[in-house]
């Protein structure tokens, strides 16, 4: 039974989850939110400097990175926090598991269906913004933009994976939602502060102590930071603006490596969820 995996069963669960989000217009609503925010930030992003209008793709992406880091993890966590615990509370989990369906198939189906919904919203929302930006920007810049959208999809998948893990561990929806919000606060708001604080307290400075050696690796412990590095590091102006050039070695900033770390952030929480759910 351990290796008995039927893609058809995963597809049935995933199809239902995805269709549900299409039918209740979740995908459309989130796509509109993404598109509206993306366009607003692209156009008004430089208002603090006294100007408005579309600027270079690099600066636009740098602005959008902050938006994505706040918005995508939150939406992913909200989307997935009750994937399993919701079924359990509703009383339908036993019914689902009484079908010719393994727990692994149920969990993968849930994740896949929700991921498809989130990915569609992300690609549609930022894609629409990209189409509008395309009239203002050179074609080469749009490849860069496509990479940004792809990394946003991966970021969403990583936080969705965390949300599904929470939904397996939580005993009720209330606790699951609290844990999901806690994860958002931790990864999006607190992690970097703690990291910087810890480094300053532990090593005295970020310039040459062991802290500065460790710092890039510790950033990998946060998928939001991985996403930030992936999108910021390649852009010279923005890298300087974020101060990354001084603290992040170029060797660690290879897209392949960062992509692999992001995939690990998707796979590991899901693997923990599978382990716990099958226990």
């Amino acid at each position, binding site marked *: *039974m351990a290796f*008995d995996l*039927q893609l058809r*069963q995963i597809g*049935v*669960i995933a199809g*239902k989850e995805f269709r*549900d989000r299409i*039918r*209740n217009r979740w995908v459309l609503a989130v796509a509109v939110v993404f598109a509206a925010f993306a366009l607003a930030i692209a156009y008004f992003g430089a208002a603090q400097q006294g100007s408005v209008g579309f600027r270079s793709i690099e600066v636009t992406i740098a602005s959008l990175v902050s938006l994505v880091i706040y918005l995508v993890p939150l939406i992913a966590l909200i989307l997935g926090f009750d994937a399993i615990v919701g079924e359990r509370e*509703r*009383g*339908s989990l*036993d*019914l*689902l*598991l*009484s*079908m*010719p*369906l393994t727990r692994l198939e149920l969990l993968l189906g849930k994740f896949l269906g929700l991921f498809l919904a989130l990915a569609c919203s992300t690609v549609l929302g930022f894609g629409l913004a990209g189409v509008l930006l395309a009239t203002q920007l050179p074609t080469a810049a749009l490849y860069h933009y496509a990479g940004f959208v792809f990394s946003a999809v991966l970021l969403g998948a990583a936080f969705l994976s965390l949300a599904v893990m929470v939904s397996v561990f939580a005993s009720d929806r209330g606790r699951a939602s609290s844990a999901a919000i806690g994860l958002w606060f931790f990864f999006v708001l607190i992690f970097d502060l703690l990291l910087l604080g810890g480094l300053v307290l532990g090593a005295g400075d970020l310039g040459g102590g062991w802290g500065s050696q460790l710092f890039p690796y510790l950033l990998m412990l946060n998928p939001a930071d991985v996403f930030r590095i992936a999108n910021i590091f390649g852009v010279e102006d923005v890298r300087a603006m974020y101060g990354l050039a001084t603290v992040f070695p170029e060797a660690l900033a290879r897209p392949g490596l960062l992509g692999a770390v992001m995939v690990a952030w998707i796979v590991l929480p899901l693997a923990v969820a599978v382990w716990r759910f099958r226990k």
Partner: protein
Amino acid sequence: MVNGMNGSASSSDSVGVISIRDVRKHYGAVRAVDGVDLDVHAGELFGLIGHNGAGKSTLFKMLLGLVPLTTGSIVVDGRPVHGELFRQVRRTLGYLPENVVFYDNLTGAETLSFFARLKGCPDDDREALLDRVGLAAAGHRRVREYSKGMRQRLGLAQALLGKPRLLFLDEPTTGLDPEGIREFYRILREQRDGGTTIILTSHILSEIQERVDRLAIMKQGRIEALGSVQSLREAMNLPLFFVLRLADGGGAAAAQARLRDTLGDLAGGVEIAANGRELHIHSPREAKMRVLAALAPLTADGRFADVQVREPSLEDVFLGYSG
């Protein structure tokens, strides 16, 4: 030791369509199920009753393969329920959980299609199933608009998808009105007559006492009694209850005295009490025919307007075993 007419848990020499052998489920020190042996035979309508916490829900979930066994074995339809062939086993099962809540955003028909796809069976009989459970007109309404009773009917239709050989129904009539309950059991009888084996749990003992073929009473994780309702009554030897309603103009005290005289020769254990215009007799089961014979002359002379003989209810039997 299991009580009842069938002195052992395995009620016959043949192996049942469900065969449970020394099944235990322990959660630390808590013994939710503690050494259950049971055979349920093909085409049987079998009841599983017990107090809350007696272990019946855990046993039910183990039968469905939802909860792993601590020890023992469960074979359903010739296949171990927890083994590699679990998919084949589950395709032959229908299950209606207690308090199931379906997906509010789907219609009744869509709900059946979803579960049919999961079960790997065609959904082309979904309209017929909806019609059979009385939801033909509501099949294309969203489940959020359904009453509790309608959801329960949908649950039964879902359990009947794919023509299962075994039906597991956990408190299946919750929320149904009396007419719905009657129709529900009519459907179950049809299924049973078609060869489907049915196991159900219920707290409404009056509802199942005339409808199940056999039942098991669980207590503290064990099967305390097993057999038909009648066999359990007889094994428990609960007294029969006679209710004699006095005819108009008859005095209760005089009738009681006459009755005492008439029944005086019977063996001990017969108790008579007056209750307004009624006389109540509690009699040992073995004295039933003698009591009836003794009452014959009194009813013949018009002293009583009505005589009722009440067998101990399943509730009496249940409380006798589990109380």
